[in-house]
Each structure stands twice: as structure tokens, then as C-alpha cells.
């Protein structure tokens, strides 16, 4: 791969990564969020693959394939199942036939209707967070300026946006998407900074993330059974009163 094409492809993948984070903030439809997350996972795998080909480290290609399968395939699949469980589920008996509407989906469950921070404000916040990431990443770039480390601010920006989604969204699934965005950002940072952490650590981290999402999936189901929905605003019984 020529150096020009390498830079171009790497930058493109980073751009897609960042764009997906922004779209996660922009979109309210939970199903779309999950799809965007899959695209982001693919972009992450692409970053790893491009780095692997450029540095001729074929082990990195295997890691890239693993990352791709997990983050563009398995995790979005789990989330989609968590979304799909909305209409069925043993804990949630179907309404009597007389009341069943032709629209099987409960709209309030499929969308982020009232985010804590409204979408326009959160987009502006994302802009500020990106600038912050750029400022914070300057010492990182200065340490070893290459095309890959120059893209480090992208990773940090995705981390910050993911954290913001986690704070500013009220739907359980949206929070999980925020968490995974955060995690994608960290993995991207690892790839860009040092071509990824050692394989054993990467394996452990991926396993942990998978388990965490599984746990959250189960908790979402329980939340529906206990609260009748996944609005995190309902979670306010435990407080210091």
C-alpha cells in the first residue's frame, strides 16, 4: 500500500468513526442508533486492518477481523434483540385484543423522545467536545507524529461523545449505545496510538465488553418487567431522602 493511499484510507475510516458518533447524538430512533453502531464497529475494524496491512503485521488483521465480528456483528445483534424484546416477552403479557392497536410498536419505546439535553444543544456540545479532544490530544500527537497518531483526537472525541450520550440519554438502549461508542473510541485510540494493546489484553477487554452488554441486556428485560418500560427516569427510587 502506498503511503498516500494508507493515509487516505486511515483518515476515511477515522472520519466514519467520528461521523457515527455524531449521528448517535443526532438520531432519536433507537433502531437507527444500533445500525449506526454497527457501522462504527466496521470502521473500527477497518482502522485496525489498514494499520495491519501498512505495518505488515498480519496478527493485527486477525485482531481486526475479531473486532469487526464483535463490534459490527455480535453487539449490534444483541442490542437489536434487546429492542425487539419490547413487543413480546413473558414478563409483559400482551394487551387484550380489543385494545391492540395496528401499530405494534410503542412509539415511546422505540425513540428517545425527551433526551435530558435537547438534540440541537447536544450537537453543539459535541462540537465543543471535539475541540476539547483536539486540545487534549496535542501532547499525544507531539510525542510521535505519524498519520495514525495525528488521528488520535478522533478517538478521544468519540470517547467524549460516547460519555456525553451516556449522560444525556434517558433510554436504556441509548445508554448502552453510548457506552459502546465510548468503548469504540478507546479501542480506536489504542489502535491509532500503538497499533492496539497486546492480544491477551484485547481479548480480555472484548470479552468484558461482550459480557457487560449481555448483563445490560438481561437488566433491560428485567427493567421492562419491573417498570413497564426502559425510561431511565423511572429509576429514581434509590436516593438520599
Amino acid at each position, binding site marked *: 500500500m502506498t503511503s498516500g493511499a494508507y493515509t487516505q484510507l486511515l483518515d476515511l475510516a477515522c472520519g466514519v468513526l467520528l461521523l457515527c458518533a455524531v449521528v448517535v447524538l443526532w438520531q432519536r430512533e433507537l433502531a437507527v442508533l444500533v445500525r449506526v453502531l454497527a457501522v462504527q464497529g466496521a470502521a473500527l475494524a477497518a482502522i485496525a486492518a489498514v494499520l495491519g496491512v501498512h505495518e505488515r503485521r498480519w496478527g493485527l488483521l486477525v485482531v481486526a477481523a475479531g473486532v469487526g465480528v464483535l463490534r459490527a456483528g455480535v453487539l449490534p445483534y444483541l442490542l437489536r434483540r434487546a429492542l425487539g424484546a419490547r413487543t413480546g416477552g413473558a414478563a409483559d403479557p400482551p394487551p387484550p385484543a380489543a385494545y391492540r392497536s395496528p401499530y405494534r410498536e410503542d412509539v415511546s419505546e422505540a425513540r428517545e423522545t425527551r433526551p435530558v439535553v435537547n438534540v440541537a444543544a447536544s450537537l453543539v456540545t459535541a462540537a465543543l467536545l471535539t475541540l476539547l479532544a483536539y486540545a487534549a490530544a496535542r501532547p499525544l500527537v507531539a*510525542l510521535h507524529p505519524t498519520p495514525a497518531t495525528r488521528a488520535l483526537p478522533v478517538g478521544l472525541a468519540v470517547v467524549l461523545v460516547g460519555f456525553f450520550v451516556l449522560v444525556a440519554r434517558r433510554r436504556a438502549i441509548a445508554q448502552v449505545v453510548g*457506552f459502546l461508542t465510548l468503548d469504540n473510541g478507546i479501542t480506536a485510540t489504542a489502535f491509532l496510538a500503538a497499533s492496539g494493546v497486546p492480544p491477551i489484553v484485547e481479548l480480555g477487554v472484548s470479552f468484558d465488553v461482550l459480557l457487560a452488554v449481555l448483563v445490560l441486556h438481561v437488566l433491560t428485560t428485567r427493567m421492562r418487567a419491573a417498570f413497564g418500560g426502559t425510561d431511565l427516569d423511572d429509576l429514581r427510587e434509590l436516593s*438520599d431522602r
Partner: protein
Amino acid sequence: MTPTDSALLLTAPVAVPLAAAAAHAVAWRRAAASGGTAPGHRLTQWAGLLAPAAILVSAVVLAASVPSHGPVTAYGRLLRADGLSVWMLLVVGAVALLALAASPGYLAGERAAGHTDEAGAQRYHALVPAFLAAMCLALLAANLGVVWVAIEATTIVTAFLVGHRHTRTSVEAAWKYVVICSAGIALAFLGTVLVYYAARQAGVSEASALDWPTLAARADRLDPAVTRLGMALVVLGFGAKAGLVPLHAWLPDAHSQAPAPVSALMSGVLPAVSFTALLRFKVIADTALGTGYTRALLAAVALLTLCLSAALLLAQRDYKRMLAYSSMEHMSVIALGAAIGSPAVMSAALLHIAGHGLAKTVAFCSSGHILRLRGTTRIGRVRGLLAQSPALGAVFGLAVVALLGMPPFSLFASEVGIVRGGYAGGLGWAVSPALALVLLAFAALGYRTGRMVLGPPQPAGRPGDAPHALGAVAAAPLVAGLVACAALGTALGPLSDLLSAAAAITAGR
């Protein structure tokens, strides 16, 4: 020590609990398939003690050799036990032994009240050893990435223990716990990645760039700017798991919802394990950046946490949450000790971890008995505990007295050590307000516990008012914990070598 011995000693604390967890997981599957009606065996209940016993035995054997012969490694330096990890392993083993000894009584009570069945009990027995295994791995792994993986694994394993009851409050607590802890600790991983990047750029090879001994030895060559950013993220991230501000919000909820023995483990040792990882990074950062940066960071976090926990202790009406905030208070005292960082203060801080772990275990386990007795966690509804159940009242009262930092319990000695070292080390500006806040927390905790324990028995005619005897089986672990805590306070005995070795590691010299 032969390589086989060391491999055995380092594997046992992780492998034995894992094996126990696997055995119980199979039983859990079977019980769940049979609808949770199959009766449990007495044997399996007490077999749970095997795991903490294995941890404790390995720790004791290691404690005998490590201070004099230096660190032990196994599996090509993947696992490594130095003074710090052995000390923490001892604490984990002791606390886990107490907590698991209290478990059969707790589960029997839950089953009698209809809150759980055979499947639930087996799940409990499967998850708790897995939790122990993850903590031990976090302590024994030499690779900082693996340490992170193990600490995140504790979150995942304990999620279902926090949410074991399927009620609205427990689901809420479990959700907050998983989301806040996972996100917080993800920041720690980002910090780890940045340190790894700095190490790779400093010429450390890929295989050893996360290896703690290598990093600590070559920390002076790390890029200061990158390390500074990484360290801030690590303090935030591992601080989340240690109950330090700003990502502490999960702690009171999770501790108040988890089963009492699990609360004891989560409050007594889990924050300390996370804090140990933080200490390892501190050693690296102190060499790379000088001590000032981490000191300022830790002191600020500690003071903020102390402010918050003291304020919330003043207004607290729930005794399990009260104990949780007391954990935050003690973690911030420990963090303050780490900020001071001289060897004497570090040994005081490590002693504080041990004393707090023991006393908090007794307090949480006895709070479980109080909850079963009175059916409420409101402080206002519990009166005259001592009159109704002298043994329980006395144990709970003494545990809180220990947490208050009164002699003869070890927390007295360690707090005095931290404060004295702080003034000597020129951190008076941080220690003075901290002292005032600790006194405030002292007053709040003492006043509320006094109202619960002392006073006349409640008027007759209300449920759960009959005189109550704790019973020897239930009382034994509680008394043992108090005795151990008091013993640590009076004399360290053979442990003093280990403690000074551990303190020397964390003080970075």
C-alpha cells in the same frame, strides 16, 4: 521456592474459586431446570468456604516468603506477587472468609422469607467465588491490562448479585452499578492505553509495555505530558470503582441493595482492590512526573469525596446506605494517605484498608441480621437493638465503633498514622479540613448508631419484637472479624515485615 510451588501458590487464589464457581454454576443450571424446588445440601453451603480458605492459605504462605525473598512470579511473569499484592490477598482472603461464613445464615433467612429458592442460592454460590477469583486476578496479574480486565470482570460478576431480588430498587441499583462502573473504568482503560503508548514510544517492547515491574523500572523515560493525561484518567476510572468522586453515585445504591455478605465484600475489599491498581499507576506516575502531580490529584479527589460523604452521612436515614457512605469516607482517608505517600503513611493506609475491610464486613453482615429481624432499613424504625438482641446489638455497635476509629481497633492506629504523617509531610492544608470532615462523619455515624443500638426496647405488639438470640454459628464470623480488627490494632506481629515491604513498593522507593 521452586517454580512449581510458586505457580501453584499464584494459581490457587484464582483457580480454586473459579472451580467452585463452575461447580455451583452447574448446580444452578440443574436447579433452575427443576424449577428451583430441589433441596440444597448442607455440604455445598459450607463448601463455599473452600475458596476463601485457598486464598488465605496461599496468601499466608506467600507472606512468609515474599518479604525476605522478593517477588514471586509464574507463567512467564504473567502472574506476580510482591508485598503489596500479598498484603491485599491476605485482606481479601480474611474478609471473604468472614463474609462467606456468614452466607449460609443469610441464605437461610432469605429462603425462609421466600425471597430466594434453590436456584437463587446456587447462583449466589456460583457468582461469589467468581467475584473472588476476579479480585485475586486483579491483585496478582503483572500486566496492567489484565488488571483492568479483572477489575471490569468484578463489575460484571457482581451485577446479578446486586440485582438478585428482581425488585424495582434492585434493578435500578444494578443498572446504575453496571453503567457507571463500566463507563468509569473504561476511562481507566483509556489511561492504561495512554501509558502503554508512552511506554512504547520510550522504547519498551510490545510484550512488556504493560508489564508493571518493567514500567516501574523504566518510568523515568515516559513522556510526561502523555503520562499526566493517562494518570488523570486512571485516577478517575479506578476511582470510580473505589467509590471516589466524581463517579461514585453507584456505590450507596449497590451496597444497600446487594445481599449483606456481598455488600461486605463490595464495600470491604473491592474498592481497595481497585485502589491497589491505582497505587500501581501512582508508582509509575511518581517516577515519570515527580510526586506533586498525583499528590494534588489524589488529595483533591479525597477531600471532595470526604466532603460529600460527610454531608450525606449527616442526612442519612437508611443504615445500609449509611455504611456505604462510611466506606466512601474511609476510601478517601486511604486516598489521602496515598497522596501523602511517605513509607510510614503508606503502611498506615494499607493497614487502614485491612482494618476497614474487617470492620465493614462485620457491620454489613450484622446489618443483614438487623434487616431480617426488623424488616426495614430505616434508621428511625430501629430502636433498642441491644435490649432486644444483646449479641447482635453489641456486634453491630462494636463494628461501628471500630469504623469510627476508636482504640483498640486498628483503624485508630492507621488514622493517627496518616494524620501524623500528613502534618510531617507538609500536607497540613489537606489534612486539617479532612480531619474536621472525619469528625463530622464521626458525629453523624456515632449519633445514628447510638439511636439504633441503645435505648429501651420497642413497645410490644409489633412484628419482629420478640427477644432474639443471634446463635453461635451466625455470631462466630462476626466476633472473629472484630477480634482480628482489634488484634491488628494492638500488634502487627509477623505481618509487620510484609506491611513495610508493601508500603515500600507503593512509596515508590
